[in-house]
C-alpha cells in the first residue's frame, strides 16, 4: 500500500508543502550554481525587455489615456480616446479599406508565390537565376518600388500608360493615382509582384524537404502532376503555407509605405489604410493620445487575427 499526500496527517502535509515550495522562489534550485548567478544572467535580458518593450508599452498605454497633443500640455481623459473610436467614421472607413485590401492581395500573393516556387524548386539549370529574379522585387523594397511607380503611373509619360496605350487598352492618359479604385488596383498589383518572392522562398524550403519517394509512390499509383500537387505537396506544405498567410495578412494590416508614397491616402480618404490613418492622426492632426489608442487597438486586433489564423491552420493529428 502506498500513502497519498492527502493520507498524511496535517503537520506532515504542511511540512511537505513547505519542502516543495521552498526551492521555487527563483525556480528550481540549481545543484551547481547559487541563485544569484541565474539572477545575474537573466538581469540584462530582463532590463532590455523592460526598458525597450515593457516600459514603452506602459507609457503608450498611459499616453492613450490622455489628450496628449504633439504640441502643448495634456490632461488625463480616461477611456474617452477608446470610446471615441466607435464614433470615428474615418477610422472605420480605413478599417473597411484595409480589410478589402487584405482580401484582394492575400490569395494572389500565395498563388503567385506558389507558382514561382514550383518553377524554381527543382535544381535545374537556371533555377538559381530565376529565384534571384523572382526575389529581387522583395529585396529592392516596397518604398523604392513605390517611388518608381509614382513616375511610371503618370498620365502620358509613365511606362504603365505607354504600355497600355501600345496594347490599345487605354488612351495612355489614365491618372491612376487620382482615382481611388484605380490606385488601389495599381497598388495591389505592385504589392503582389513585390511580396510574392518572400512567399516563394518560404514555400521552396518546405517543398525541398518533401521526400522524393512520396512523389514516386504517387506516380506509381497513377497520380497526375495536379494530383501530386494537391495530394502530396500542398498537404505537406501546410505549415509553410500557414506561415506565409499569417505574414501576408499581418503585412497587409500594417501596410503604410506604398500608400504614403503613392497616394498619401487620397483622393479624399479613398486609399487610406489603418496605419496611414493613425499616422495622420499623430503627425498631421498632432493628436498623439488618440493615435496611440488607435495603435493599441490595432495591436490587439492583429494579435487576435494572427491567433485565429494559427488556430485555423494548426496541425490536426
Amino acid at each position, binding site marked *: 500500500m502506498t500513502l497519498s499526500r492527502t493520507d498524511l496527517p496535517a503537520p506532515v502535509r504542511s511540512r511537505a508543502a513547505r519542502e516543495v515550495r521552498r526551492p521555487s*522562489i*527563483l525556480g528550481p534550485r540549481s545543484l551547481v550554481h547559487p*541563485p*544569484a548567478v541565474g*539572477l545575474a544572467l537573466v538581469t540584462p535580458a*530582463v*532590463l532590455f525587455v*523592460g*526598458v525597450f518593450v*515593457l*516600459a*514603452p508599452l*506602459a*507609457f503608450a498605454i*498611459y499616453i492613450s489615456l490622455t*489628450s496628449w*497633443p*504633439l*504640441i*502643448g*500640455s*495634456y490632461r488625463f481623459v480616461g477611456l474617452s480616446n477608446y470610446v471615441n473610436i466607435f464614433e470615428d*467614421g*474615418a477610422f472605420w472607413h480605413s478599417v473597411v479599406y484595409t480589410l478589402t485590401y487584405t482580401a484582394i492581395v492575400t490569395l494572389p500573393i500565395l498563388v503567385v508565390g506558389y507558382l514561382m516556387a514550383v518553377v524554381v524548386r527543382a535544381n535545374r539549370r537556371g533555377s538559381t537565376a530565376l529565384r534571384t529574379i523572382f526575389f529581387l522585387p522583395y529585396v529592392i523594397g516596397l518604398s523604392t518600388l513605390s517611388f518608381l511607380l509614382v513616375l511610371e503611373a503618370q*498620365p502620358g509619360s509613365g511606362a504603365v500608360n505607354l504600355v497600355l496605350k501600345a496594347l490599345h487598352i487605354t488612351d495612355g*492618359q489614365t*491618372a491612376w493615382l*487620382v482615382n481611388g479604385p484605380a490606385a488601389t488596383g495599381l497598388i495591389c498589383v505592385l504589392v503582389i509582384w513585390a511580396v510574392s518572392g518572400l512567399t516563394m522562398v518560404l514555400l521552396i524550403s518546405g517543398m525541398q524537404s518533401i521526400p522524393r519517394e512520396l512523389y514516386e509512390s504517387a506516380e506509381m499509383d497513377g497520380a497526375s502532376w495536379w494530383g501530386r500537387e494537391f495530394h502530396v505537396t500542398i498537404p505537406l506544405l501546410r505549415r509553410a503555407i500557414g506561415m506565409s498567410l499569417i505574414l501576408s495578412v499581418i503585412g497587409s494590416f500594417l501596410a503604410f509605405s506604398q500608400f504614403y508614397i503613392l*497616394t*498619401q*491616402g*487620397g*483622393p*479624399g*480618404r479613398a486609399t*487610406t489604410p489603418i496605419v496611414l490613418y493613425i499616422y*495622420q*492622426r499623430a*503627425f*498631421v*492632426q*498632432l*493628436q498623439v493620445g*488618440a493615435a496611440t489608442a488607435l495603435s493599441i487597438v490595432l495591436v490587439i486586433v492583429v494579435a487576435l487575427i494572427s491567433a485565429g489564423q494559427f488556430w485555423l491552420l494548426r496541425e490536426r493529428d
Partner: protein
Amino acid sequence: MALKRREFLQVSALAGLAATLPACGSGILAEPDVTAAGFGEAARGTVTMWCRGATQAGVQVVIDKFHASQNQVHINLTPVPDGQYVTKLATAIRSGDVPDIVDIDDINSMLFIYRGVFTDLTSLVNALPYRQHMSPGHLRLATDNDRIYAVPYLADNSVLWYNKQLLERAGVDPTKAVTSLAGLLEAARRIHALGPDVYAWSIAGNSPGILGFVVQPHIWATGTDNISGTLGSQRGHVEGNEPLRKTLEFYRTMWQEKLLPAANYADAGTTWGSDFRAGKIGFFPSNYAATVVGADPAARARTGVTLLPGPEGGTAFFDGGDNLCIPRGAKNASGAWQFAKFALDVQQQQLLPAGGYTPVRGDAATGPFRQKYPLNLAPLDHLDRGYAPVTLAYNLLYNQPDSPFIAMFRRAVFSGDVDGALHAGQQSYDQILQQAQL
C-alpha cells in the same frame, strides 16, 4: 542580500516606470523676457533659425546681408521640408530643444500659438514704427486674445493673372470682366473661341494646396468663409454657403464646356503655370512665383494682374506667406528679434519679389519698387483685401491629399455632383474641426 523574485519584479517595474516619467511633461517652456533692457539690440552669439525649404534661398540672402551688417550675431539656418515643418517643430518643442526663431507658414502659426508655445511679441510689434503698414491678414493669423505672437515676414498671395494679348484678341476688357464670376465665364467662352489650343483658364485640379490657395478667395470676396465660429468651437460652413456653391458651379461649367485644359484633371501642380507662361491660357489664378519669376520678358509684358472676384462682386486674395516667431525656450531670443527687425527693414523687404514673394509692408511699395516690380503691386496696394482663415485645421481641411476641400472640388467640378459634394464636405469639415479642437 538575496533578492527574491517578487522583489526583483517590483524593482524592475519601478525602474521601468521611472524611465518613462522624464518623458512626461507639460511641453510648455519658459518664455523669454522681451521687456528686458536692451532686448533685440546689440545681442551677441549664435541664433538658430528654421525656415521652410521653399523659402530657404530668400532667407539666406537676408542672413548674408545681416552678417555683412554686423559681426556680433551669427544666424545658423536650418531648412525644413514644408510638408514636415509642423511635425518637426512640434517634436522639437516637445523635446525642449527649440530653435531661437522660426520662419513658419502663416497659416500654421495659430496651431502653435493656440497651444501657448510661442513668445508673446505684442509690445515689440506694437513698438515698430511701421506697425500700421504691416499686412493685417498676417497679423490676424498671429493674434490670439488680442496678443500678437508673430511678426509678418513675407507674403505669398493668390491673385488672378491674365494674358493681355489673348483678352484683347477676344475683345475682353479685364476691368469689366473681372468683377463677377458671370463676367469671367462670358469672357472665358470668348477666349476659348480663339482656337482649340487656347484655353480660358487653368488650375491644378489635383493639388489640394493650390486649390485651397486659388479657389477660396472667390468665396472670401463676399465676406464669407467655409468655416464658421470662433477658434475652439468652429464648424464647417459648407452646405448653404451660396458663394461656395456658385464658385463650384462656375468651375463645373468651365470644365463641362472644355474651357479648362483636360490635363487640369490630374495636374498635381508639378508644371503649375507653364501653360500660362507659354501664352495658351487667358486667365490663371496663381501666385507671383509661379507666374512671373520663371517667365521671360515677353511673357511678363503680356501679363496683367488683378484680385480674385466674388460671384457677384467684391475682391480678395489669399494672404499666405510666412511669419517669424520666437518659440518659448529660445536661448537667444534677443538675437532672434534683432534679426527679425533687420529682415523687416524696407531694404530687405524690397528684395522679396526676386525670390517670388511680396513684401508684408505696404510702405515698401516705393516709386523705384513700383517701376521694378509692377506685377507685385496688386496685393500690396490692397492689403486690406487679404484674408486667410484662423483655424487649427487648415492643413487638414485644405493641404492634405485626403482633405475635404479637394474631395469636394473634384466631386463637384469633375463629376458634376455639386449637392453631394457640399453635403459630404459639410460632414468632413465638422468631423475634422471637432477632432482638431479637442
